């Protein structure tokens, strides 16, 4: 079933919308959540909560791209769940620990104290930066930091070693940091 038909089901309040979403994107959503939480039970819950949230937002929302729309919800729910677990010191090391640790390389150096920042501006700068990359680098960055795919999985796909790939991704993070600094983004 194509995305427009699935969205139509949400708008018609037809519960088949949820099963169709699961059939088409369930695997992808589970992957996103599991890559962040590293816990099957929690991930399963986040994916189920994703459908509930989608059900509650469509209508009035009519996404242009259902996969990204659902994936974004899962990503948000999962990182929030990780944060909750982290605060309560519940559960072991999760994918998000590594992801966030890596992303700390991108934080622009600043002499000022933390200030409120409009995240949409940061998103715009990151989008512009991503668009300037080669397609392969752009896909690599988003596969790692949007979908949370492991270095091992990405290395296998690229027919290289995780160590070599880690070097390539590290250089991308450094480039992003430079871009954020150049655009005077303060976090």
């Amino acid at each position, binding site marked *: 079933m194509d995305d427009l038909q699935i969205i139509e089901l949400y708008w018609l309040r037809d519960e088949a919308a949820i099963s169709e979403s699961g059939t088409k994107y369930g695997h*992808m959503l589970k992957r996103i959540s599991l890559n962040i939480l590293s816990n099957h039970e929690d991930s399963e819950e986040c994916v189920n909560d994703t459908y509930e949230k989608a059900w509650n937002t469509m209508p009035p929302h009519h996404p242009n791209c259902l996969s990204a729309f659902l994936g974004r919800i899962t990503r948000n729910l999962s990182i929030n769940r990780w944060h909750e677990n982290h605060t309560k010191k519940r559960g072991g090391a999760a994918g998000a620990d590594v992801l*966030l640790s890596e992303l700390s390389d991108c934080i622009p150096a600043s002499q000022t104290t933390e200030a409120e920042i409009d995240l949409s501006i*940061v998103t715009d700068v990151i*989008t*512009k930066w*991503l668009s300037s990359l080669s397609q392969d680098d752009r896909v690599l960055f*988003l*596969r790692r930091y949007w979908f949370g795919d492991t270095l091992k999985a990405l290395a296998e796909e*690229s027919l290289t070693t995780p160590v070599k790939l880690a070097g390539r991704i590290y250089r991308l993070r450094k480039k992003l940091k430079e871009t954020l600094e150049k655009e005077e983004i303060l976090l």
Partner: protein
Amino acid sequence: MKEKQIFDAITNVPDELVEEAREISLKPIIKPWKKWTALAACAILVFTFVFTLPHGSSGPGGELLSVGFPKAYSYNDWDAKQAVLKNNPVEDTFLKAVNGFSYETGSKLLASSSGNSNYSPLSLYYALAITASGARGETADEMLSLLNMPDQAALSVQCGNLYRQLYTDNEIGKLKIANSVWMNQSVPWKQDFVKNAAENFYASSFSVDFSDPKTAQAMGKWVSEHTNGTLEPQFEISKDKILSILNTVYFYDEWTNKFDSAKTAADTFHSADGTTINTDFMNGTNSSGSFYKGDGFIRSSLSLKNGGKMIFILPNKGISPRELLSTPEKMQSAFEGGEDQNGEVVWKMPKFDFGAKIEPIDALKALGIHSAFEQSADFSGITDQMASVSDIRQETHIAVDENGVEASAFTEVAVSTSAPIALDKAEMILDRPFLYGIAAPDGTLLFVGVCENPSAK
């Protein structure tokens, strides 16, 4: 926590980027054969080589050899695809050889054509490669020179590896290449030629009577079956014909981001002769696309799900597509050159669906192939009988719509003993004649054409 802010900012990057990352597989970092995986995106080729002999020749009948296709893998079976790449390395020099050939022949063939044109350089390359594998002496030297390869052994092995890399038949796209050798049953054949054609070109062999109308029908049916019914060439019966080599390629793939059919609307296409054509245009916007501005053109491309892409080159107003094809260097510049820019790309592209024919003999002669067309031609690697190329033709079909692109081609080579013959924005508003090509993700060109009238069939 600052890293969480970066994480959240990444969460909200545009849908197109997320979708791209979801759809596109990472390129293998191991060299250079990776480039050809996606060649698959493009070609549809059919070649026929027809050899004719003096009347009265006799000899043993050929034996039938049936060759299957390589194993096809599912769209998502990345491991299997990687194994195919690993086991069938294509040398960088071979990629350059094919690219050089593409621009040399593409410029010659298309710059002098008129109306809608479509050409598959890879198809012609394969056709000539099979022929060259049985050529000897000066005939072989000239053919290998145009094919930019040092010897027949390397040519055959590289063609075989490329064939296996390109072969695609999954739930989304297809690049089904097939070859066959139709031999006069009364002519003695060199088994090494037949064996090499089978091993490196996956060519099945048939022993036939070319004077029987059923043979012509069977060959037409074979081509039709291997091009999903998009091509139905006619074959003439001939007492002189001794060999016909057919190569077909059927290609279909979907756009990574399909066009929304609800946005398709009729509008005006402005022909080169000043007339206007009312036709359906597909509309879409890529908010973060790449495009290139060069000398006299703007170029952008649309990704295909199996890794290739379709390139569109819109000449600046007042410049014709064929000016951009007038030399191999200009053609290469149009397909690969220009200043790289990123930003919003607004697409307005006519749906089109047409067939085209090309007769490449004059172009091949101009590019240095002479001996193969002369009585003194040496094809002693195929048969000890005298034989020379007397005719070559390529027929193609291409169709583009909201879902993707389908293309097919057929080439015939006849041989006889007688004398032969910054954030910026680009608007890809394709409402005047334009160039297109189908290429690998790294820009390797597979297919090229000119659309002058999108409503012509």
